[in-house]
Structures are given as C-alpha cells and as structure tokens.
C-alpha cells in the first residue's frame, strides 16, 4: 500500500518535474526572503511578465508545430515602433494605428510561415534571418530615432499598458484572456490537434490528410499576432520605444516555453505549461533582483537555472539523475 502510494507520488513527480522545481524554488526563496511572496511583489512579477508571456503563448504554437521562432524579439521592436509612429501620424491616430500595426506584423508572420510552411525552409535559418531583416526594417522606418508620443495626456493609447480594470492591470488581463483563448484553440479545436500532429510526426500528418504547410503557416500567424499584442502593450506602457526594445527577448521567450516543458522536437507542450514557464522565469529573475544581484549577473544565473530545470525535468522522466550516453 505504502509502496503504491510512493509509486504514484513518484509518477506525479515524473510528470510534473517543472512544477515541482518551481514550488521548491518558491519555497526556498521565500524562506530566504519573505518579501518574495508579498502580494505586491507577486502581482508585480506577473505584471512585468505579461509582455514576455503574451509572446510565449504564440511561440508555443510554433514550437509544438515542430519549429522555432527567433524573430519575435525584433518583431516586437518593429510593432512597437510602427504603432507609435502611426499614432503620431495625423492621418492615422490611435484608432487606425493599432489595426495597421497588427496587419503589418501579421505580414511578417506570413513571410515566416510561407518560407517555413510552404517552401519547407529550416525555421532556425529563416527566423534568424528575419530577426536581422526586421531589425533593419525597423531602423529604416524610424530612421534610427527613438519613438515617443508627444502629447501623452491627450490620448487613450496608454490604456493597454497602464490601465487597469477591477484593480487588475490591463496587461495581466490581456495575458490571461489570450492564454485562455489560445489554450482552448490549442487544446480543444481540430486546428490545435493538427498542430500537435504536424509537430509530432509531419509525415504521418500528411498521410492523414492534414495540410501540413497551412498548419505551420498559421502557427506563425498566431505567433505574429501575439507579438503584435505584446508590442501594443509595450508601446502603450512606455508611450515611447527604442528600436531595440525587444532585443534578446526571443531567447527568454523560448526559455519560458521550454521551461514549461514543450519539446523542441515538436508535438508536445500546452499553453498552461507555458504560462507556468513564464511565471517561473519571472520569479527567478525577480528573486535574483531581490537578492541584490546586478542586472547583468541575472543573464548568467537565469541561464544556469534554465539548464538545471530542464535537466531536472529530463531526469525525473528518466527516473535517474545521471544517464551517460554511451
């Protein structure tokens, strides 16, 4: 009896390695500095994770579909710059700037999706190329200048980044709402099922009459849509942006998705797990900040913790900590 109980606990551990690591980490940090779970701090972390989180939701689709998207960071800069610039353009104003920015960002996603889905080019190469191409595009658009909204008091544009409803910041509401919608799209609809099939075994998906190219194409549109949303939050929060505002985010986003347990090989992962991954990453960085570590030390420590977490995940799945490939 005790034996089977132990086994089922072991089973839960094996399946939820990341969640366990997360809880251990939270408990450890709280013991060390109780301020860590202060509600203000917790909400602060969630709010500051919202942009990364929204982007990670989209990248989850791409990764489950068996591909990568390294262009999301520079795409975020693009969408923030574009929406701010159009906002300042009297011909547009906020009401037109937002849909125009979404349309342009979706075009970038469509380029990714076309090259990777229909032309079957390698997603690492394509999106890495797009990373720098979009950066160039952004600089061309902005002429290398930062973008700012001149009359910040006369626009409602700030609502997406600064507003709140029922005491909850709008970015957090957007994150939660989008997570719910995309979670349902991925987990409950035929399209979601097809994404898993294409990422799990593309050939078998083709043999099952699933339009592999179109499915991959759409995952990149979803990713671009999420980036546009994140760009909107970013631009709205700061009412201004640099050309490099999204630089490096692509790796953090990918880290959050992988921390959540999606496989880089495709075919596995969920939106819920990604949300957990985003929170883990957010809390790790926050914890390090509370510990008084310099900002740049964070990069190193974050990386170490990601490696540890992934290792723990694999180790619990294998049932042993050390498995040399011989």
């Amino acid at each position, binding site marked *: 009896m005790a034996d089977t109980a132990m086994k089922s606990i072991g089973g839960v551990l094996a399946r939820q390695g990341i969640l366990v690591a997360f809880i251990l980490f939270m408990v450890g940090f709280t013991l060390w500095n109780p301020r860590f779970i202060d509600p203000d701090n917790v909400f602060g972390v969630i709010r500051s994770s919202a942009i990364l989180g929204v982007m990670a939701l989209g990248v989850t689709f791409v990764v489950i579909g068996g591909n990568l998207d390294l262009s999301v960071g520079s795409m975020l800069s693009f969408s923030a710059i574009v929406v701010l610039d159009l906002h300042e353009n009297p011909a547009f104003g906020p009401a037109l700037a937002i849909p125009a920015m979404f349309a342009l960002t979706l075009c970038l996603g469509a380029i990714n999706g076309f090259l990777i889905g229909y032309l079957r080019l390698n997603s690492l190469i394509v999106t890495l190329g797009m990373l720098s191409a979009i950066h160039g595009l952004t600089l061309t658009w902005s002429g290398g200048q930062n973008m700012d909204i001149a009359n910040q008091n006369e626009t409602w544009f700030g609502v997406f980044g600064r507003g709140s409803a029922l005491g909850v910041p709008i970015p957090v509401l957007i994150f939660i709402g989008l997570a719910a919608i995309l979670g349902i799209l991925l987990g*409950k*609809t*035929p399209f979601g099922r097809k994404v898993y099939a294409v990422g799990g*075994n593309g050939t078998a998906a083709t043999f099952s009459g699933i*339009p592999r190219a179109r499915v991959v194409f759409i995952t990149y549109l979803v990713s671009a849509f999420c980036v546009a949303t994140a760009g909107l939050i970013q631009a709205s929060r700061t009412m201004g942006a640099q050309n490099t505002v999204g630089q490096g985010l692509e790796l953090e986003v990918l880290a959050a998705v992988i921390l959540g347990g999606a496989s880089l090989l495709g075919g596995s992962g969920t939106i819920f797990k990604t949300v957990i991954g985003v929170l883990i990453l957010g809390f790790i960085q926050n914890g390090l900040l509370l510990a008084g570590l310099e900002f740049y030390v964070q990069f190193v420590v974050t990386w170490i913790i990601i490696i540890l977490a992934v290792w723990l995940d694999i180790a619990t799945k294998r049932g042993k900590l050390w498995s040399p490939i011989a």
Partner: protein
Amino acid sequence: MTDQKPALRLEGIVKTFPGVRALDGVSFAVQPGEVHALMGENGAGKSTLMKVLGGIYQPEEGRIFIDERETVMRGPLEAKANGVMFIHQELSLAEEISVAENIYLGELPRKSFGRVDWDTLYSRTDAILEKLKVSFNARTRVGDLSIANQQMVEIARALTVDARAVIFDEPTASLTDAEKSVLFDVIADLKAQGVGIIYISHRMEEIFRITDRISVLRDGAYRGTLETAKTDEDEITRMMIGRSLDLTRRQAPATPGPVALRVEGLSCGDLFQDAHFEVREGEVLGFYGLVGAGRTEIAETLFGLRKPTSGRIFLKGEEVTITSPIDAIARGISLVPESRKEQGLVLGMNCRDNITLPQVGDLTAGPFVSDGAEISIYDQYRDRLQIKSPSWRTTVGNLSGGNQQKIVIGKWLSMRPEVLIVDEPTRGIDVGSKSEIHNLLRELAKQGYAVIVISSEMPEVLHVSDRIVAMYHGRVMREFTAEEVTEDSLIQAISGIEGSAA
C-alpha cells in the same frame, strides 16, 4: 540438449507499466546452440521480456542468469558486456552517421589521445558486412539505407561481440526473401557456435523452419514450452489465444458490383509503368510482388502522394486527378500505409487522437472537438479490432508493435472509405488478429467496399483476394483470378520469368 547448462535463464520476471502488468512472473531458459522461439499475441509481453533481458527495463522482481551465473543488467551496455545482444523490433539507429559508427557506437576503436581509429573501424565493419552479403559498406550513411538494410545493420551490430545469447525481435518484418535467407544462415552460424538464440516472430513458417523449441506467453504470463518438431500450428495457436483458427478456409467469393476504381496506363517515372487494373465494389484485389516492385508507389499515387507522369484514374467511371491526400480522402480513398512508425502514427499522441486524426475536423460540437464522438469511435474500433491498450489516453508509442498496427487500421476503417487500400496490413500482427483482419477485409468487401491489399506474404494474398495482380520491377506482369491462381504461377510472375507476362 536439456541436460546441458542453459546459456540463459530467466526466473520469475515481473514488470509493470501504469495500468498494465506486462510480465507476471515469467521464467524460461535457452540452451546453448538452441534457437528458441518466443510467441504470443500482440501485447503478450514478448518485447518487454526481451527488453528486461537487454537491460533496457529493470524488472520489479525476478532474476536473470547467464551461464547459470546471476547477472543484473542495469543498461544495454552491461547486457552487451554479459554477452546478450539485441536486435530490436523498432529500429534504433542514428540516421546521420555511418553504418560503422552505428555498429560500434559507444566503443569506437581508439588511437592515442582518444582519436578514433577510422581504418580499423571500417575494416572491422566491412568484414562483418561481408558475412551478411549486403550491398552497402561501412561508410554508408544509415539514413540513406532502406528499412530492410537498416535492419541488416542492427543484425551486424549483434555480430560484433562474442555473444552468449542473441535476441531477434521480429527481424523479418521488412526483409525480402533473399535477405531472410541470409539472416537464417547467420542464425545457423551462431547456433553452430553454441550461442543461445531467442527468436520472436508471428510467422509460423519461419518458426517451423528455424527454431528448436517454442515458448508461449499469454497476457504477460508464461504458458509453456513446446518442441518444434513435435508440435503443429494448431497447438501453438491454441496455447497463444486459447482457441483454434481455421486459416485455410477459402472465403466465399463476393459478388462484385460496379467498378469503383479503374486505372489505365498509369506510370510514375521509373517507379512503375503502364499499370492497368480495376477494382469493383465488393471485391478484394491483391497486389503481390517483391519488396520494391512498385506496389507501394502505385498506392501512394492513388492516394495523391505522388504525381503520375502519365495515365488515367477513374473513380466510379469518372476520370479524376488526385492531387493530395486531402483530395483522396474527400473522394473516399483510404490508405493504410506501409510503415506505421513513419507514416501511420504520431507516436507521442494518444490512441484515440491517432484514430480520429483524419476526421478530427468533422468530429466537432460547435467549434470544439467533441470528446464523446471521438471516444465512441475509439471504443468501436478497439472492440472491432481487439486493440489491447490500457485506455484511450495511452500514448501510442507505448503500445506493442501489433497493437500500433491495429490503431492504424482502425484509423482508416473509421473513415468508411469507398476504396480501401491496405499496404502490408498484418506486418507484426499475431496469428489470431491476423485472421481477424483477413476476415474483416473480406467482410468489408461483402459490405460493398472496394479493397486493395498489398502484401509480400503469399498466403495472405491467396487467402483474401478475389483477383491478384502480380508485379515485377514496376510492371504489372499478370492478373489472376482466385480460381486460376497457383503458387507456382504467382512466383513466376513476380520473378519476371518470361512467358508469364500478360
């Protein structure tokens, strides 16, 4: 033989997976120089038992003895060190590297400073490959080899050490007859050297051809051991599935209806040329030929996976161009593909989702996939095909090989196609389920389906077909009716012997 010390002995092996007791106290022994068959239904636990022996799974209970010395196998390398070699049912090679590196993976010969000694590596490998009479060499990249040749690489790997015991888990599933006889020569060699051999297969003719004794597993339990020379198919079958099968009964010919599919002069590059044939509703058309004769390619062309270079296809008398699988499915064509692992299944998905995959877009309640509709389809085909799986949630990759194959068949049957094409439908399937599937194919024909069966097993083709198309090197050599066909004429036709062409 029995008074000798066994080369290998297993005692009371227990292994469980979530929801399954895969091995329930299994004991058996293999003598040196003996070929010992391990038989049982799909999911009986054969592969699991061998994986315990090969150090891949750790048993919860039980002991392993090599030459009567108790041995603990903590991993595949340890099993190898103890002289146990394993040829897996599912291929486990690294595609990107050479044959030689695969064979000596983990113990490449070294020079000073840990540099790989390539010359020794290649020459050793080529020496082994020579014995196997294969057409590739040590430097070939494994990914460039056919499935059958990859199987030969697995076999070569087993010949690199002084083995005490070699396990063959369904090694012949994708081999041609010529390759099979090379394999049987290799087994005879090992046997002469006093190695104990465990041979898993569902093919009775092989069992009788090469084995000395037969042990049977049923639902994870050991049922007994028979001397091959003193038993027959019927006894083995009864031990395996608890009843007899009437395998030889010829099915009553169906009364065919109108022509469902007609093909005129269909060619696809140098894969196949100028194929003519038709299938009627209510009829099973068999395609027989050697591996590589172009049968699979014809099926793939009909399913929209290949573009024909010339020729015409008619469905119900109407000429059609089939441009993609989506198109083929919409026109009522289903294809059970040749390779379940690469083409048939998403191994990481559960059983239910795999079965419903081609129609998931239609199984909806509002915008959402309907759980209930999916589960009822799964239940229906689980019962109809007797799929053994703990639940619909079980990951397909965790099913036994034969049950995986049944999932693929269920997936395509559930589409209720008008033309059902099955390519090697019973590969890796146990005798009981095999006859179930044959009966099912006949039954489907009776219900008015047009069925095309591609098979490399002559008894299967003879048993299920109303008419048989014989192919050789991309050409349809001859068509036979069930009444006129004989084994000899069929063999002649598929070997391209002159005078048999239509």
